[in-house]
């Protein structure tokens, strides 16, 4: 069935759509009450975030817009040191969207939410003119321990920089889908809260964490270097990129350091804890390719340097220009 303006009327067609797709797949006691607000137990300190998802195509190797909408918000909470608890989701549907697609997306959201241990407690649906597009906003609430002090401003000389796995998979998967290039590159789209929780619990002194999304690794580390007024030095040979993505980048002239990811994080930890943090990441479901990729070094503040494969030094700035539009 195709979505029509009637599905956004607020009347019977809307309530049927909600009942048949969203309530059916997101079912939980809070949502089941169908009140105007979700009323849930809380914590003393909350982490709150919101993100909108406009990716095209809606379905791609390794994921879809629904999985992305859950992972993106869960990961923003997780890298803040919080335990993600609740999500809300707003759907903006263009006329002509297929309800079959919408249901597939809802199923994917429900599965991902279950894996991440979050509950979708509120939602909204609107229909606008257009040609079948689907857009999702998710907001998230996480509980934060009082002792948590993870911040981009905490990096200090001697700290180690870790990356949780291969760069560029999501970007390459989306681009492959758009260009009709047949390959087996899968988006890395995944919830990272298991990994952040394991790191925080392990006793590793975690200074800063961030998921490496649009703008890529170089942009995230520039944010750390600016917030902490420090110099970050990376080793190119230690930065994990799969052979296939490396080849893909070579052909299209892309730089993995600036490519978007949806299931990768960077962590800055106390230098002495580097090995422990690496073991911890590697033991997590999405961390098998984790690596220590560099350190916070002495040097000019607000600078990110890369020791290149041939022994040169490259200064890495934040991403300039558009990157790839509508990647998430």
């Amino acid at each position, binding site marked *: 069935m195709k979505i029509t303006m009637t599905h956004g009327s607020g009347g019977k067609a809307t309530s049927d759509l909600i009942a048949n797709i969203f309530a059916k797949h997101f079912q939980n006691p809070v949502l089941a009450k169908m009140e105007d607000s979700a009323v849930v137990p809380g914590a003393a300190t909350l982490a709150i975030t919101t993100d909108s998802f406009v990716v095209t195509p809606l379905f791609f190797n390794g994921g879809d817009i629904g999985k992305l909408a859950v992972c993106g918000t869960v990961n923003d909470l997780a890298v803040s040191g919080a335990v993600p608890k609740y999500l809300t989701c707003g759907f903006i549907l263009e006329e002509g969207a297929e309800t079959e697609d919408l249901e597939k997306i809802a199923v994917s959201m429900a599965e991902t939410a279950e894996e991440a241990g979050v509950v979708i407690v509120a939602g909204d649906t609107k229909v606008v003119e257009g040609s079948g597009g689907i857009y999702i906003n998710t907001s998230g609430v996480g509980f934060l321990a009082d002792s948590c002090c993870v911040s981009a401003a905490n990096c200090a000389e001697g700290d180690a920089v870790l990356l949780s796995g291969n760069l560029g998979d999501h970007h390459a998967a989306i681009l492959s889908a758009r260009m009709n290039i047949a390959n087996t590159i899968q988006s890395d789209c995944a919830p990272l809260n298991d990994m952040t929780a394991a790191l925080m619990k392990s006793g590793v002194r975690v200074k800063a964490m961030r998921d490496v999304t649009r703008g890529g690794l170089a942009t995230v580390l520039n944010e750390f270097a600016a917030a902490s007024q420090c110099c970050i030095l990376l080793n190119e040979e230690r930065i994990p990129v799969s052979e296939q993505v490396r080849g893909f980048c070579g052909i299209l002239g892309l730089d993995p350091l600036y490519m978007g990811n949806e299931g990768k994080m960077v962590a800055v930890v106390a230098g002495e804890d580097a090995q422990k943090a690496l073991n911890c990441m590697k033991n997590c479901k999405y961390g098998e390719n984790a690596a220590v990729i560099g350190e916070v070094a002495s040097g000019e503040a607000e600078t990110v340097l890369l020791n290149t494969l041939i022994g*040169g030094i*490259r200064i890495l700035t934040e991403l300039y220009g558009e990157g790839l539009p509508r990647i998430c």
Partner: protein
Amino acid sequence: MNELKKYLKDYDGPPLNIMEVCGTHTAEISHCGIPGLLSENIHLISGPGCPVCVTVTDYIDKLTELSLAPGITVVTFGDMLRVMGKNQSLNDVKALGGQVRMVYSPMDTLKFAAADKTKTFVFAAVGFETTTPVYVMLLNEAIKHGITNIKILTSLKTMPAVIDWVCENQGNIDGFLAPGHVSTITGSDIFIPLAEKYQLPFAVAGFGGEQILEALYALVKCRGKAKVMNLYPSVVTAKGNEAAQEMVKKYFVPCDAAWRGIGVIAGSGMILRDEYAAFDAGSAELTADHIHNPKCRCAQVLTGAIKPTQCPLFGTECTPQAQQGACMVSTEGSCYNYFVNKRKA
């Protein structure tokens, strides 16, 4: 490799200016941090090898005009979107309702044309010898399948004439890192007349950091000698891809071409033959060039007369967010490369 690196770092002979002509080389030199591996007596300068940077404003104006015309969609590589014409860029007219689609491959134009026969799709065909065969493929396919709603607006350039211009007018170059991709099509022999005329070494190089270092080493070693060295033999031959050359000749003839900041250089471009004129969206006579900021030194940057950092606008009025000249727009532009990599040398 270590010996070679030591030689390049310790070189204390006469100061040398080595020009890399290709924008992809410029980008890779920055990405590998090569300037820091060289002696202070070896200077790398970027040449006019970024197709977007050398395109005149007349051409952009024609594209924006076409995109606003009823029934026409302009199809382009992404880098072209932000380049300013006299008053506006393709991105600007897109926001005003201009029909513009960005692609990674010109062949996508075939899909668009087949899907909507009521529109004409005009591909912004810029590039050097490497890219021209792709436009040949596009036209070949269009003819083969009877697709008539595709045209190209060409601003196609060829390397030898502009290198000749640089040698003639600049005169401070001691060697050329010759473009690997272009040479794949043209063959390395194409540089022999230039090497002999100006008694200079040319090294055809691949695009890896080590390949670039090997080529620089060869150029320093052969300074002052008329010599063409093919250091990219895995893909480049002396004669090049003759099948591609023949196909290009079938569709295109050499023409005089206008270069941003340089002017018209005789025989430095390619244009569709008369018998294929139906596919041309109006490429002839696009020669006027408008300088937006009188302080912009793009012309000297393009020909290697100055380094990007020597332009008074660099990093102040001219940044990737607010470009005053085309060299700051393209990811292969020398100013863009110097800026985003904070290059000094």
